């Protein structure tokens, strides 16, 4: 193995791969990258895997001599990151990977690459061609609500439903829900190859709808490598896994095999009190008032009636705070609700419009949050469960 590559080109490709390396070491070989270089195609390929997710980055390099090896992922990232912005020369000699740049020399011991798990093959013949931008946006609206409770694997992913007319992503941790639903033509198209192959496609799409759960680690990786210049995302859905092909990356991911719980039952769209308010003004006020909120439950309280919207908090040990907002429109009777300020801010960050619509009922009913849009064109629905008052 012998090649040369610009430091910037290499680091840009491996910088996000490191997030795939498993945190808990289950098998020592997985702390390594599998590196393959091919002189004929002039491509360098680096693979990282935690068994559930495998990511391949493939990009051009000046390859003089083909070869394969495995080296410590952490070390390679740190070494390349430390190099000056110049050409990096990589050369495998016996069991050492020699990495040279300017007058800097590293010798990195290689691991036994034959131990690396088998990489699935990259077969895009059944792929859907999708809009990367739309996919990116849908994940951005939902990923923050994913649960980190590993006891409940099904909630650690985003639920993705595809029907002939629309598709939907949703996530919940039981305390908040985020859902986005968009009509999907023209963005979700089968590519030319797939049309010839209808029989096989029905496995994944069927006639009605599919529901798959995307692991949060997979979507987080896709979010990191998102590049607004690259418009196409190819997706292959199989029974037990996804394959995503995007820019220089191929991502193989397991599917969380569960039925997603019926979170929609919790939605109450016709709550009696409705507020329309400037989103930034609301966020600023919440951030300010929450400086005094208790650290354990992060409680703040909304008291709203027709001409007064008060945000308040109080903390037995430290003090209290309140701010009254006057510029808003309101439809309803006086209402109040106590909520976790961090949760409500995470939702407001995902609201697209300048004004945000809040709906609330009794202090025990959820707070519903929407974009400023007519109900029929409403794409996103957020729900936040209150704190007991």
């Amino acid at each position, binding site marked *: 193995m012998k090649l040369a590559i610009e430091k910037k080109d290499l680091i840009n490709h491996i910088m996000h791969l490191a997030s795939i390396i498993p945190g808990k070491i289950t098998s020592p070989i997985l702390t390594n990258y599998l590196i393959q270089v091919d002189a004929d195609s002039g491509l360098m390929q680096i693979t990282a895997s935690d068994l559930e997710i495998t990511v391949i980055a493939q990009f051009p390099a000046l390859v003089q001599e083909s070869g394969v090896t495995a080296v410590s992922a952490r070390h390679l990232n740190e070494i390349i990151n430390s190099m000056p912005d110049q050409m990096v020369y990589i050369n495998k000699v016996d069991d050492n990977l020699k990495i040279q740049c300017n007058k800097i020399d590293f010798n990195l011991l290689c691991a036994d690459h034959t131990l690396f798990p088998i990489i699935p093959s990259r077969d895009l013949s059944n792929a859907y061609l999708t809009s990367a931008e739309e996919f990116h946006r849908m994940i951005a609206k939902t990923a923050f609500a994913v649960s980190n409770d590993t006891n*409940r694997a099904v909630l650690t992913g985003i639920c993705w439903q595809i029907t002939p007319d629309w598709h939907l992503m949703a996530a*919940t941790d039981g*305390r908040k829900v985020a859902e986005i639903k968009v009509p999907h033509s023209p963005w979700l198209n089968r590519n030319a190859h797939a049309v010839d192959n209808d029989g096989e496609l029905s496995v994944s799409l069927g006639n009605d709808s599919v529901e798959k759960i995307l692991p949060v680690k997979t979507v987080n990786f896709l979010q990191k490598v998102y590049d607004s210049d690259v418009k196409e995302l190819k997706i292959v859905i199989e029974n037990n896994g996804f394959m995503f092909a995007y820019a220089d990356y191929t991502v193989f991911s397991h599917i969380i095999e569960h039925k997603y*719980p019926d*979170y929609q039952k919790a939605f109450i769209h016709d709550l009696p009190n409705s507020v329309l308010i400037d989103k930034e003004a609301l966020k600023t006020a919440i951030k300010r008032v929450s400086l005094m909120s208790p650290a354990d*439950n992060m409680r703040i309280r909304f008291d709203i009636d027709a001409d007064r919207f008060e945000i308040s908090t109080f903390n037995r040990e430290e003090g209290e705070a309140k701010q009254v907002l006057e510029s808003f429109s309101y439809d309803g009777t006086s209402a109040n609700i106590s909520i976790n300020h961090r949760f409500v801010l995470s939702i407001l960050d995902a609201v697209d419009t300048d004004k945000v619509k809040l709906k609330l009922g009794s202090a025990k009913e959820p707070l519903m949050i929407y974009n400023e849009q007519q109900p029929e064109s409403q794409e996103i629905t957020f729900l936040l469960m209150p704190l*007991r008052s």
Partner: protein
Amino acid sequence: MRKIIHIDMDAYYAAIEIRENPALKGKCVIVGGSPNSRGVVSTCSYEARPFGVRSGMASSQAWRLCPQGVFIFPNFKLYKEVSEQIREVFQRYTDLIEPMSLDEAYLDVTENKIDEQYATTIAHRIKQEILQTTRLTCSAGVSYNKFLAKIGSELNKPDGLAVIPPQKAQEILFNLPIEKFYGIGKVTAARMKKLDINTGKELHDLPMKEMIRHFGKTGLFYYYVVRGIDNREVITERNPKSISCEDTFDRDIDDLTELLELLKQVVSRLTNRMQRKQINGQSVILKLKYDNFEYITRTQNIPYLTNDPDQIYRTAELLLIQNWDKNRKIRLLGVGLNKLDTEIDDQAEQLVIPLSFDDLM
């Protein structure tokens, strides 16, 4: 200073049975399981006590100690009715009532409905009124905290009344044998005796650090109560911390199929009760008692709150299979749930969506 009264009915179940059937008067009345069953003694009359009969003892053993004893199967419905009458008496004086069981309660009479300054007077009147209403006697302890009130009701049993004012507390506590301390059971008492602690005085002499080292958090409780400090409130509505059901078999069993069948029945009784009371739990406890009365308890958490019989059964089944020493016969199986929503609700302020999941994981 608070004014707390502890009322403890005298040989309650036995006394009721004697009231119902005066022919039993003066006899050794033993309420509980029958001596040829595997039941235990719930209560016995004072006449039976010199023979060594005690609550919680196997009925068969009680019968050996006291063969002339009259064994009566408990009639809980009746006992509950009488307790209701007693509670009505309490309610004439205060609403701050904490029933500990059918025959025992704490009352906070610091402020009371008859504006009586002396708790002792109230205790007298309660004793009298209970006697008039139910023809039963009780013992009362009057003091400035729950622990001392409880000690007081024990002092002159039966039909006693003891007042422990602050200036008398130390003397009484110092002379109290260690096993008479409320909350110190046989096991802890034995451990204390090993440390040469036999009386309240010796308990008092143990430094706080040592107390915590030997007895953990409860050590701290002992440290304070032996100094006459007990700030526990009289709690009127008590949320259960756990709920459980158990079954002592009429013979010892070592057949897995049979055990699983019985386990299913216990679980079903438990979940029926939970559903009736609308309680959910998040942690399953299995209790196994072997034929030599040794027992183990094992716990398994469920990732969410439930009272679903299948879910609880599956968890309990796994616990049984994993923990049963198959060379030994089982005498009793019990299943319970911890981490109840009644308890969690008090702290968990964040409301959550009641999501339902299809499976265990």
